[in-house]
C-alpha cells in the first residue's frame, strides 16, 4: 500500500486526487509532482480530493502547508474535500482550516472556485 497521485487541471485549478497512504516516505513524490505542476502549468488554486486517502500523518501537513505558501503568493486558494474523520482531526489540530476551505465534494469545491 503506497500512494497513488492523480492530477487533473481545469483552467488554473489543479485537482489532486490521492489514493493510499500519505506519510514521510510517500510525501516526497507528492511534493515533486505538485511543485512541477504549480510552476509549469501556471496553477493558481488547488483542490485536494481525499476520498480514497486511507492514511495521512503530519508529513502530509508539511507538504500541504508548503504548497499553500506557493499558491497564496499568486492569490490562490486551497480547498479540501471528501475527508475522513481521523484526517480531519489532523487538519484541525494543525490549524489548517484557518487557511484552507473544507467542502463535501469536488463539485462543491469547483463551484466555490467559480467553475460551474
Amino acid at each position, binding site marked *: 500500500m503506497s500512494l497513488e497521485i492523480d492530477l487533473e487541471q481545469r483552467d488554473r485549478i489543479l485537482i489532486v486526487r490521492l489514493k493510499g497512504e500519505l506519510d514521510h*516516505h510517500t510525501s516526497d513524490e507528492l511534493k515533486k509532482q505538485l511543485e512541477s505542476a504549480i510552476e509549469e502549468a501556471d496553477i493558481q488554486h488547488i483542490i485536494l480530493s481525499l476520498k480514497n486517502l486511507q*492514511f495521512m500523518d503530519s508529513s502530509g501537513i508539511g507538504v500541504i*502547508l508548503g504548497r499553500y505558501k506557493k499558491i497564496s503568493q499568486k492569490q490562490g486558494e486551497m480547498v479540501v474535500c471528501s475527508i475522513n474523520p481521523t484526517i480531519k482531526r*489532523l487538519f484541525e*489540530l*494543525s490549524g489548517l482550516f484557518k487557511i484552507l476551505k473544507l467542502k463535501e465534494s469536488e463539485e462543491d469545491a469547483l463551484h466555490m472556485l467559480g467553475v460551474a
Partner: protein
Amino acid sequence: MTNKGSNYMELSFSARSENEAFARVAVASFISHLDLTVEEMEEIKTVVSEAVTNAIIHGYEQDPEQMVYVSTRIEGEQIEIVVEDKGVGIENLDEARQPLFTTKPELERSGMGFTIMENFMDSVEVTTGTGQGTRIRMIKKVSPNKIYS
C-alpha cells in the same frame, strides 16, 4: 519483560523510510483481535507513524544502517506502545513538544508530531537527552469489552 496474562511483541528494523508503513501495519495487525473502532485503529497507526518517522529523520538523520525499536503490550484495559531510537536525542524537550516547533523546516516538517501523539493517546512519556537516543512510551485505554484475557 515478563509476559504474564498479557500479549507482547517487539520489533526492530532498519531506519529506512519504506519501513514506516511496515511499522504501522505490524502494530495494527498485532492489536487487530481487540476489535477497536476504525477511528481508534487509525489513531494508533498515526502515532506509530509519527514516532517512527521522528526516529528515522531526527534521531538517525536517515542513516539506513541504524535500527528503530517498537514494542506493543496489550494488558488489562490498555495498549502500551514504545518507540525507541539510539540516535542524537533531544536537547530541549519542552520546546520540542510545542505545536509547530520543528528543527527541520527545510524538510517541510510541520512540527505537529508530538501534538498528534498527545492528542491521540491517553499518555505520552518521553525519555531523551543529547546523545542518549529517544524513547517514547504511549498508552491508550480501550473499552472494557475489549480487555485482553
